[in-house]
């Protein structure tokens, strides 16, 4: 009987180890930060101060998930969209994407920029054999798309576990 209980206890200890294992996924690098107007926005940071600073949006949608509580939210600021996602009741900056040429990244990317200009900024290799350049920084990524040899989309996304 003792052996049985030892097996049982060992199982419970194993159960504890299995359930409590946490995968750390952190890098030293900071996530992408954008400056839009006078406002600095860092991917993966709380959205509330950013949304307040940006002022009233032109449009707004909420997207619930299939089953979970909380809403993904998308704010339309005319030249760009800001999407947030909820984690433990707090909305975080999840995605920003540009839709007009009157906003630019700090390194000079904007919608409509010619391919050569984009290659100068992102690096020639980034677009090799593809219309997309994806750059990872910290736990976030930037994706630049080309269409007809011009930048057609610039999107920043937080890589959330």
């Amino acid at each position: 009987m003792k052996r049985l209980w030892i097996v049982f206890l060992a199982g419970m200890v194993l159960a504890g180890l299995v359930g409590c294992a946490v995968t750390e996924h952190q890098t030293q690098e900071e996530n992408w930060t954008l400056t839009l107007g006078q406002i600095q926005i860092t991917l993966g940071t709380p959205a509330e101060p950013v949304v307040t600073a940006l002022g009233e949006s032109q449009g707004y949608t909420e997207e619930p998930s299939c089953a979970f509580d909380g809403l993904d939210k998308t704010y339309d600021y005319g030249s760009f969209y800001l999407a947030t996602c909820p984690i433990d009741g707090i909305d975080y900056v999840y995605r920003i994407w540009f839709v007009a040429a009157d906003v630019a990244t700090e390194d000079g990317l904007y919608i409509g920029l010619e391919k050569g200009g984009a290659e100068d900024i992102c690096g020639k290799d980034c677009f090799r054999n593809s219309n997309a350049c994806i750059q990872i920084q910290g736990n976030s990524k930037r994706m630049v798309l080309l269409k007809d040899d011009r930048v057609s989309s610039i999107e920043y996304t937080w890589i959330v576990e």
Partner: protein
Amino acid sequence: MKKGKAAIRILILLTVIQMLQNLLVPKYVTQFREGALTGEYYANAGDNDVILIGDCEVYENFSPVTLWEEYGITSYIRGSAQQTIWQSYYLLEETFTYEIPQMVIFNVLSMCYDTPEHTGRQSQREAYNRMTLDTMRWSASKWKAICASMTAQEKEQGGMLTYLFPLLRYHERWNQLTQEDFTYCFHREAVAHNGYLMQTGVKPVQNDYVQPPLADYRFGQNSWAYLERIRTLCEEHGVRLVLIKAPSLYPIWWPQWEEQIEEYAASHNLMYLNLLEQQAQIGLDWNTDTYDAGLHLNVCGAEKASKWLGKILMEECGVPNRQKDAQLCARWAQKERAYREEKGE
């Protein structure tokens, strides 16, 4: 004598472990009801002429009771929250061990998730996997479904073992237990109506949904492979496969995706119905027929979509009216009662 005592002790130990497991696993009765859907099928298996498979776009947008009442079509929705195409395939494979329907209707949205890593936030993916797989009965199909579904993170944290022994996954719920866990420790109440999860609220569509453009609109190889397996599985069993895109406004169904599905359907002589393109014919009113601003239909919208779909199934696909079968009528009368009760009629 010693052997007898040892056997009794083992039995007691196993019973205690089983009871602990029953207590600690989520019940999915009042919260996250979607998690109960897979398991509710087994009590309703058999005599379903139509099986619908897919994610929330099927279990919230179509009503089997309406299909029955309007056309005498017997159907069941084998849907689950964010069901991936590999899960659809294995659920279908399992379904065919219980019954061979005349028709399978597959909602194509999940084609956009090529692998477990493509399905969004990984913490949610694991929970979605649990909601689809935990209440699936053990079989080779379940085993394969788990293998296909686990994320890299799940594999690191116990993998298959936690599906075999859910206690390993849920032991830490001991301090989150609620009344529901005790009430439904040994029995569950049905949350759905032949797989349809009823929503009665109303929240009108306010604005158009937007998503950034994609770098590549081609569906992935894994998705295509599973769609082909679904098609072949149906073909082998003499079951007609129909593809649909449910009338949900978000996630956006890109035109490039539509083209690929149209092409696939045409090349395999499959019927493909995109209900997004039939909103006027269905009579959908986005002010009244949705409970979450256009992502899913409420019961009013689901009944409209089902009436539209049922007409096509009966008139163009020859799915029979079974209302002359007295036994079936009696069984469905019970389902209708429960449905009316939840609807508040």
